[in-house]
């Protein structure tokens, strides 16, 4: 029957359109003119991830440089690794796009020592790989990601100096997270505020670490 055929054809056309609906609303090319606005969360999340990576690199460097501090610093470093894992779990990007942006980020930094995994931490006397059980640091931009504070930078030699180096880093990291809170979604704001609070508690814990051992 002709009428039935037509209806079926319409249904089929409708079904064909369905998968498109979510993407373009079936409006054709014009719909592409207004891409979904990029969530501020993504850029802020990337920065927070880079900052945690730098922080972990700093702890790695201090732990390598001072046997006496290692035991006290490991629990704090473990918390940073937990922060990093949580932050990364919020970042959902296609792998290709992720590596492309990482490459671009690395390329944009002319001075970066991107060759080595922990190269940015540099002037550590020991050349040990130092990635014992690290939560799979992804790419070369990890360590050099924090341009604001001169990356992992040189770790000061003395024990007290190393502690205050980490304390400054913790304070700065917490302040940076808090400053960005207004721009992010409620869920990410909670995670960032919690990470900032954890980092703030590390300042006192580091003072304790300096006093013992």
């Amino acid at each position: 029957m002709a009428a039935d055929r037509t209806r079926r054809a319409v249904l089929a056309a409708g079904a064909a359109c369905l998968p498109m609906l979510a993407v373009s609303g079936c409006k054709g090319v014009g719909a592409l003119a207004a891409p979904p606005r990029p969530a501020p969360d993504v850029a802020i999340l990337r920065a927070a991830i880079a900052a945690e990576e730098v922080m972990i690199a700093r702890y790695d460097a201090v732990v390598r440089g001072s046997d006496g501090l290692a035991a006290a610093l490991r629990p704090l470093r473990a918390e940073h690794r937990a922060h990093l894992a949580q932050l990364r779990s919020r970042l959902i990007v296609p792998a290709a796009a992720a590596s492309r942006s990482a490459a671009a980020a690395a390329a944009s930094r002319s001075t970066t020592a991107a060759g080595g995994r922990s190269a940015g931490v540099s002037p550590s006397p020991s050349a040990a790989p130092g990635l014992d059980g690290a939560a799979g640091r992804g790419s070369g931009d990890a360590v050099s990601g924090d341009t604001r504070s001169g990356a992992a930078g040189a770790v000061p030699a003395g024990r007290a100096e190393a502690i205050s180096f980490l304390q400054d880093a913790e304070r700065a990291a917490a302040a940076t997270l808090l400053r960005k809170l207004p721009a992010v979604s409620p869920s990410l704001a909670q995670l960032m505020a919690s990470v900032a609070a954890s980092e703030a508690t590390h300042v006192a814990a580091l003072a304790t670490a300096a006093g013992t051992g």
Partner: protein
Amino acid sequence: MARTSQRPAAANEVSALQAALAAEHAAVYGYGVVGAYLSGAALATATSDWVAHEVARDSLEAMLRSAGQAPVAASVAYRLPHRVHSSAGAMSLAVTLEDRVATAYLGVVAVTSPKIREFGARELLATATRAASWRGRTVAFPGFPAGAPAAARG
């Protein structure tokens, strides 16, 4: 805490602030018990923490009033999470009080008003610092009851 602007508060803001206020009321009550079992430096710390909770409570009440809301009142008494017989028990109660306050402030952080969110974050930081001092160690995710955020949230 500076006054928040006079404006109608969103329902979720009000409920988050009220929940934080209720937690602060409980903490103010609980620190009275904590302090009773401590002496010396620990008592001094408990006293200053107690004052901090009173200040936070007053800030929350002021914020709610300026939003045209009646602040939730304190209960006459609170059921403590566990009996306290010793200084160790008192310190463990202090940790529990701070953890509950932290969770309430995490709710405040989730509101969209930047000022209120910032207030929640500052108080979360303060309560986490107090909790770490009583606990004797730090935690990775202050305020998250399970110790970590739920896995795959948006």
